[in-house]
């Protein structure tokens, strides 16, 4: 028998330095601080040698760390995570939002979390996972002992799932369920169909009609209709899946009317088009959710439309 382990601060410091030296990201000042620490006392040197030996001794033993868990292949773009969505519109638009959501009382009553129009909301779920709700989205949080379930009642939401919790994480929308196997994904519910896009990791999408469901990994997308099977869609650019969570509206080669509808979702007031927009060129662009009116102006310019703004946030687009 050996004596019970003492907490040894020098060993902890030595362990810390091993981690930092191996990190690949050590800073100049940090490296200097390490050298000072190392030279400071003989026991520092001894402790460092011991922890360094542990790090070295692992060489060639990769197999001991093997696992069945899939590792993300693609790099997740850093900027995708550093832009925080703007929420400044929320307060100004609140009065109008109520009016426009009112018909949807059923959804509003069932929802545990709602995002207002023009608002992207970030919610920390009880297990520490993150849900981001796009403009107008609503979810009900149904966490139980067997599963972490989210009901997507309306709109689109993006989830980043914490894996320390053993309960499966599932998002139910219409008749289907998307279960997290990896890390982060978007579920988007239209009136009659649901679209799923994966930004990291792997998910499995099942409906009662399909037996095994469809497995989606990074950048892959799928769609199902109420009561229908799951169909794969062409993969999306990782950047454009759930671009709204970065505060951006990404429009990629879409007809003008679609582009206007997309931007209109972020406006508190009604957006009316009194013009035939069919037959025009496809439109691409990136706009800020925080400034949907600027986006509309840009779209109008591209499509040769004039804009009339009326009180109450009403915008009319016409030739």
């Amino acid at each position, binding site marked *: 028998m050996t004596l019970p382990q003492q907490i040894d601060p020098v060993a902890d410091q030595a362990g810390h330095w091993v*981690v930092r030296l191996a990190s690949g990201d050590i800073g100049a000042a940090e490296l200097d601080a390490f050298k000072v620490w190392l030279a400071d006392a003989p026991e520092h040197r001894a402790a460092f040698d011991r922890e360094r030996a542990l790090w070295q001794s692992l060489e060639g033993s990769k197999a001991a760390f093997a696992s069945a868990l899939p590792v993300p292949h693609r790099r997740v*773009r850093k900027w995708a995570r550093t832009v925080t969505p703007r929420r400044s519109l929320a307060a100004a638009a609140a009065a109008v939002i109520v009016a426009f959501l009112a018909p949807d009382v059923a959804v509003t009553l069932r929802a545990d979390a709602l995002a207002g129009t023009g608002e992207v909301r970030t919610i920390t779920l009880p297990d520490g996972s993150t849900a981001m709700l796009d403009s107008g989205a609503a979810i009900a949080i149904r966490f139980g002992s067997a599963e972490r379930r989210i009901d997507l009642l309306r709109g689109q939401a993006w989830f980043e799932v914490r894996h320390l919790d053993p309960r499966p994480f599932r998002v139910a929308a219409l008749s289907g369920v998307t279960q997290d196997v990896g890390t982060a994904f978007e579920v988007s519910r239209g009136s009659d169909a649901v679209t799923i896009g994966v930004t990291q990791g792997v998910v499995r999408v099942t409906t009662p009609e399909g037996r095994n469901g469809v497995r989606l990994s990074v950048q892959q997308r799928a769609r199902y209709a109420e009561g229908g099977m799951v169909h794969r869609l062409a993969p999306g650019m990782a950047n454009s899946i759930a671009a709204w969570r970065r505060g951006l509206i990404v429009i990629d080669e879409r007809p003008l009317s679609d582009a206007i509808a997309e931007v209109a979702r972020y406006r508190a007031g009604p957006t009316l088009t009194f013009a035939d927009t069919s037959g025009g060129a496809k439109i691409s662009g990136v706009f800020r959710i925080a400034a949907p009116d600027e986006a509309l102006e840009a779209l109008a310019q591209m499509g040769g439309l004039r804009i009339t703004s009326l009180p109450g946030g009403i915008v009319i687009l016409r030739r």
Partner: protein
Amino acid sequence: MPTNAVALSRLLVAERLSLVRRLARIVGSESLAEDVTQSLYLRLQRLKDDPPILNQRSFLFRLASNLAVDYVRAEQSQARRNAEAHALLWAEPEALDPERTTASCLELARVLKAASSLPEPTRSIFRLHRFEGLRQSEVAARYGVSVTTVEKHVRRALAVLRKARDEG
């Protein structure tokens, strides 16, 4: 009128391919050039409308090459530091006496046993970092988490391994 940020973002989307190709010549690979393009994108979002940018295309390309050059400089000094850190971490330790070598065989067996019981995602993160040569920041980018989170997992894994080593 669209603002500087919106107009330049749109230009970036349109010119993306030629930008990435040009930046790849500076930073050495398309994938790194994509990274620089992303940070360029971020930078554009912060542009003020005053003064108005007249020649937007040349502004965009100049800003892009500046960012790429900054990136290469930062990478070079990071590479120098990493080489030094690597030397410190991997320098030959003092010669071991045979008794200690036997002891460390037993220690290693305990350590590897503990390794296989590490929880996920700690185990995968540690494997990527220690055995597949990814920097902590690269692992973080893959998992879409912060570098701090990755470091926490690496520390946690090493703490478990240390405990196993010392428990004999």
